[in-house]
């Protein structure tokens, strides 16, 4: 295979890390549980489910417009209770962000099923420090 056009800029070996992360330019939380190409299955304005390009199984999701969700609910409203105090929020629950995103849209059976399908994998946290917009 031809050399990757960005290879010379990278250091170390590539690695797969199945943890959610915040993309400040895209203002979205990304979570992939398998290192496979995905086909986007757009549920609504805020949630996209990632389906494996290999066998169509769901292997992750993207939650968009995270800053709008934070503005509406506040970091305290999205915090993991054991990791927050009155002054500071150390980390937020991705599952709570997902629930907050669900509340932004009209209730429907298809949306409820889609959000429920990624709720278990979403039982992760993300550092509040990482949630800084650009």
């Amino acid at each position, binding site marked *: *295979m031809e050399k*990757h*056009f*960005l290879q010379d*800029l*990278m250091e*170390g070996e*590539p*690695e*797969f*890390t199945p*943890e959610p*992360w915040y*993309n400040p*330019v*895209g*203002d*979205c939380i990304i979570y*992939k549980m398998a*290192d*496979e*190409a*995905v*086909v*986007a299955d*757009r549920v609504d*304005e805020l949630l*996209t489910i*990632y389906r494996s*390009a*290999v066998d169509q199984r769901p292997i992750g999701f*993207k939650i*968009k*417009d995270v*800053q*709008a969700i934070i503005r509406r609910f506040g970091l305290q409203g999205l915090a993991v209770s054991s990791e927050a105090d009155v002054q500071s929020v150390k980390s937020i629950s991705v599952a709570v962000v997902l629930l907050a995103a669900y509340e932004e849209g009209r209730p429907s059976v298809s949306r409820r099923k889609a959000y429920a399908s990624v709720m278990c994998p979403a039982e992760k946290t993300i550092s509040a420090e990482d949630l800084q917009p650009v």
Partner: protein
Amino acid sequence: MAKDPTLWTVNPEDPEGSKVEATIPFWWASKLYKTSPVDFENLRAVKFVLENVDRIFRDIREFNKGGWCFTGRPERWCIRNESIEVPFPPEHVLAVYMNPRLWVFDFQAERASPDDPCSPVDWQNRYGALIWKSTSSKT
């Protein structure tokens, strides 16, 4: 930190005019390298799309004004491990998303629209407007 690499692409503000540089943020490419090597590999497909654009859409988010979606159809992409390349699936497009300053921040394969094989499904409701079609792409 390394300089952010750039690629020449169609200027969405003046599609028939001179090309402009789109930026692949170094931090983002590094993040893909360290979290999802397959996605890093598929930056090759992103490069292909930016150099062979089929459609350009503007206003890509409800809560954030501006931004661009460029679509195209790479011939091949990587689906598993870094070395397993296969033909890009039929009836799909690769959508590359950029902020108003033409910084790439995301890409994804999406089902193609039934009314246009070069546009993502439901493009009429998802974006502000289709602003440019390649004359060499399928219609």
